[in-house]
């Protein structure tokens, strides 16, 4: 496959009011292989939160594309990210999700590494009759080419030619700030691991997080339940997002940023249902009236291609890990302000569980819709998708007043009533997709498989 073949899968002609992608982009294993090399292993990928390894020698394991990674805090408190593979014969060095260890001993031949990734023992090295040159080589764990932190969010890249993390994140930083600043002492993860897989391409998840058009279709059954809870007789009284936020008169907007990041947002007509509202006075004093409104509003951020923050029912962080062209693993996290009152924390947790995860009452409807799409994509003759067109005539280049208020400089802005159901917000991801693919082909001199 040549770059021209890749480029021909995206029809990007905004001046002619046209944008589409070919279904093959979701179904071709060769495209997936290139995506792993040039996108997931070609840009900054989200690794986790610094608070997942708070103490010296704490570690947690994760992935950059197909590559196993361990993030460790060394004796001096410095975080580092390494390929989680022994330099000797390649076995994973850390085999649990998280833990604390001064020394990690590979279980296969006992090579040992400290928490700064340094090799501290090659078993029986003196007796090993190594060539003298062996001692000159580094036996340390391989560091990721880049590792960076933005306000507790950790990112790594196995590719060397990436911009500085802050530059890469660009306008997405403002949306990360709107989460981190919710607590006077920052935010933390609520304990409990959530993960699932779906039989569909990873880009379905990327798109869905910015898709408001599906809410009143795929989640209709959930909306009915939320409505019914308002009746006097209802035994289950949990108040949830959706019933008023998804109405036609509610102002919604979207921004696209450089490097494929996107954000959608909506004014929240019932901010009092949000757990964060319990601390609204403290928030107004600390961050001001307008930022408080932004925090209480609904916001979905995609940090392309691997991480999403959905701040609606509760504050959800998703990590996307593509497994195959038609299979994706998701890890979900519940983010909450440090020091939140226990009753508010419980309210937050119940809201989170109600909506999110494969056991919630909204996420499964998304997941199964993705699976139905993946099956539908088998119909290759219906080549071009028509799901990138809503919003075209409302799209504007650069920032609008909402962007200026937030202090961000998006590539495009759009604002309108909820019913616009903007789809132009998806274009940014595909433009970054093309950019990263092009760069990948350039890096390998076009020497991919034919």
């Amino acid at each position: 496959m040549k770059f021209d073949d890749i480029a021909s899968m995206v029809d990007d002609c905004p001046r002619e009011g046209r944008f589409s992608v070919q279904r093959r982009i979701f179904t071709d294993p060769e495209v997936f292989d290139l995506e792993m090399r040039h996108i997931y292993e070609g840009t900054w990928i989200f690794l986790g939160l610094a608070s997942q390894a708070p103490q010296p020698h704490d570690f947690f394991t994760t992935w950059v594309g197909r590559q196993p990674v361990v993030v460790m805090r060394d004796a001096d408190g410095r975080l580092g990210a390494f390929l989680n593979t022994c330099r000797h014969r390649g076995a994973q060095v850390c085999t649990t999700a998280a833990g604390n260890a001064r020394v990690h001993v590979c279980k296969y031949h006992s090579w040992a590494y400290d928490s700064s990734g340094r090799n501290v023992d090659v078993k029986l090295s003196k007796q090993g009759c190594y060539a003298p040159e062996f001692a000159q080589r580094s036996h340390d764990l391989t560091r990721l080419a880049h590792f960076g932190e933005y306000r507790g969010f950790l990112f790594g890249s196995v590719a060397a030619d990436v911009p500085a993390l802050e530059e890469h994140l660009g306008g997405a930083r403002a949306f990360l700030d709107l989460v981190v600043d919710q607590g006077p002492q920052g935010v933390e993860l609520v304990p409990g691991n959530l993960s699932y897989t779906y039989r569909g391409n990873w880009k379905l998840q990327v798109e869905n997080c910015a898709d408001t058009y599906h809410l009143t279709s795929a989640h209709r059954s959930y909306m009915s339940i939320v409505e019914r809870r308002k009746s006097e007789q209802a035994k289950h009284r949990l108040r949830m997002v959706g019933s008023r936020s998804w109405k036609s008169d509610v102002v919604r907007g979207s921004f696209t940023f450089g490097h494929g990041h996107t954000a959608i947002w909506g004014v929240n007509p019932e901010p009092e249902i949000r757990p964060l509202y319990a601390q609204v006075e403290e928030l107004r004093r600390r961050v001001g009236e307008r930022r408080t409104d932004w925090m209480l509003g609904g916001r979905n951020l995609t940090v392309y291609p691997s991480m999403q923050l959905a701040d609606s029912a509760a504050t959800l962080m998703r990590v996307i890990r593509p497994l195959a062209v038609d299979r994706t693993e998701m890890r979900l996290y519940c983010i909450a302000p440090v020091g939140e009152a226990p009753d508010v924390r419980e309210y937050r947790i119940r809201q989170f569980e109600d909506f999110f995860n494969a056991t919630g009452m909204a996420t499964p409807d998304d997941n199964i819709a993705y699976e139905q799409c993946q099956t539908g994509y088998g119909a290759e003759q219906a080549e071009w998708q028509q799901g990138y067109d809503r919003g075209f005539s409302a799209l504007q280049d650069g920032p609008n007043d909402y962007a200026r208020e937030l202090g961000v400089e998006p590539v495009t802005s759009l604002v309108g009533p909820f019913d616009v159901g903007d789809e132009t917000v998806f274009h940014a991801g595909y433009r970054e997709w093309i950019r990263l693919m092009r760069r990948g082909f350039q890096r390998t001199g076009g020497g991919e498989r034919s």
Partner: protein
Amino acid sequence: MSDWLQAASELLYREASCLDEQRWDEWIALYEETCEFWVPAWKSEHQLTADPRAELSLVFYRNRAGLEERVERVRSGRSPASSPLPRTHHAITNVRLQARTEDAMTVASGWTVHEYSTRTSQSSVLFGRYEHGLVLRSDGWRIRRKKVVIVNDCLPAAVDFYSF
């Protein structure tokens, strides 16, 4: 002792058949109005979350209204996750009486649920253990507490009350 165990087993098997045969009103009626239904999350390789007020669960309800809502959602036909509904088979094993008083008992068991999607013709399996808190009413035993541990917790795309 064996009478108690038999009564408990019969109730567990009946619950399983209600779920597999989609007799959901009968399933709901097995539960007390005020009942705790809890599916904890795992927080490490071998440790479950222990406090649903401060930690994540997969499902946590303090009364059966949550179960009623889920049944209603499936019946609405408007949820892509459950239309068409998968077929399921619940197998209950290792039933043990853990504790009992005159009119209550705690029962532990193991479960396996095979789920078959008519949409994709694919089967999947979840497995784990149950703990049932049962109470004797004038017309028979009722569930007032159920804890479901899902052992293989990297879940498929949609998991609902009939999946475990």
